[in-house]
């Protein structure tokens, strides 16, 4: 079981190098990281997996980029949008994570999309960044959306991943802090452990043979 922060942005997106982020992640209790647009490597006993973030592009372009990423070992994350967009994205083979659910409207992720995520093994990203950085109404809406996601998660059991979307080592949080912040949205310890270790399963979810009864 590898404890993973599912999304960090090292330089040039942020102010920290990938090595420094790996070093910091090791001290904070993580075994692996998904670093956006960074080649996969191992630093300070931390596995850095390559990640691809797709956002603000039409569906056709998403399909092209996902197809291109399938040849590599990268974890593909796609930014969530409205309900129709999410259904399209969740149906695409090769998409591993749908992120940014907190920024969508309350009907964007419903029981149908939740079931699609569970059936296709696509993880929903719980980003702690808005809980840490935002204040007031925005944070309240984020917590509300995450509570709704958790409700659907307990019903449909789609995979969850947890991330900080850190652009600096100062924005990274320890496993204990993850646990504390996750408790704000009703994520208990087993759920949180599963969320932190789900990334390894995502890669094999599309190729695994499933018994359907």
């Amino acid at each position, binding site marked *: 079981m590898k404890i993973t922060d599912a999304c960090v942005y090292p*330089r040039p997106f942020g*102010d*920290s*190098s990938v*090595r*420094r982020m790996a*070093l*910091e992640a090791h001290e904070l209790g993580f075994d692996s990281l998904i670093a956006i647009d960074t080649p996969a490597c191992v630093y*300070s006993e931390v596995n850095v997996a390559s990640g691809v973030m797709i956002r603000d592009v039409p569906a056709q372009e998403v399909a092209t980029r996902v197809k291109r990423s399938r040849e590599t070992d990268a974890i593909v994350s796609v930014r969530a949008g409205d309900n129709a967009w999410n259904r399209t994205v969740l149906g695409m083979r090769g998409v591993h994570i749908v992120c940014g659910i907190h920024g969508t409207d309350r009907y964007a992720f419903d029981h149908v999309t939740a079931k699609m995520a569970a059936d296709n093994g696509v993880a929903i990203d719980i980003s702690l960044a808005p*809980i*840490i*950085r935002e*204040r*007031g109404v925005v*944070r309240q809406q984020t917590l509300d959306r995450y509570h709704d996601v958790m409700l659907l998660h307990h019903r449909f059991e789609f995979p969850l991943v947890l991330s900080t979307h850190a652009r*600096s*080592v*100062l*924005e*990274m*949080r*320890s496993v*204990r*802090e993850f646990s*504390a*912040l996750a*408790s*704000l949205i009703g994520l208990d310890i087993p759920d949180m452990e599963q969320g932190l270790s789900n990334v390894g399963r995502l890669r094999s979810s599309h190729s695994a043979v499933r018994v359907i009864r």
Partner: protein
Amino acid sequence: MTSRPPTLREKRRYVLVRTDPAGTVVDQKELYFAVHEAVSSLWGDAAAALIHMAVVAAESQYVFVRCRRGTERELAIALTTVISCGGQKISLRTLATSGTIESLRERIASLQVKETALVPPEECTINGIRYTVCNCSGQKIDVIEKGFKNTTRFFLTKEDLEDI
């Protein structure tokens, strides 16, 4: 005014916090306002009153934050949401909780023995731009671009500097 007898005093807990990035000197009052804002925005005024937070002391990069006994968890969660203090980007790492400041001071002493203070190189050049090294500890190196306009701090490692 006479002080209350010990049995009538409310029990308190002290949380030891480290401020990152290393070498940052935070003003105790500004940190109090930052933590207070984080506590009251996350938990609301009623819970903030129950937590009864106070920044008791700030010694180099270690800070003692006091709270009412039983509210340590709420305080620790709020501390993770502190992202700046006095316009400076910081991060607060909760290290330990105790009933006395004295035991936390012992904890600091044990932590400082482990830390290896190194003499950093004064400056370095990355992609033709000169940077001042502002902190160096173990493999970690923090640099700031030389000049008046850009004072962004970059977080690198020794290997990064060797590769460039």
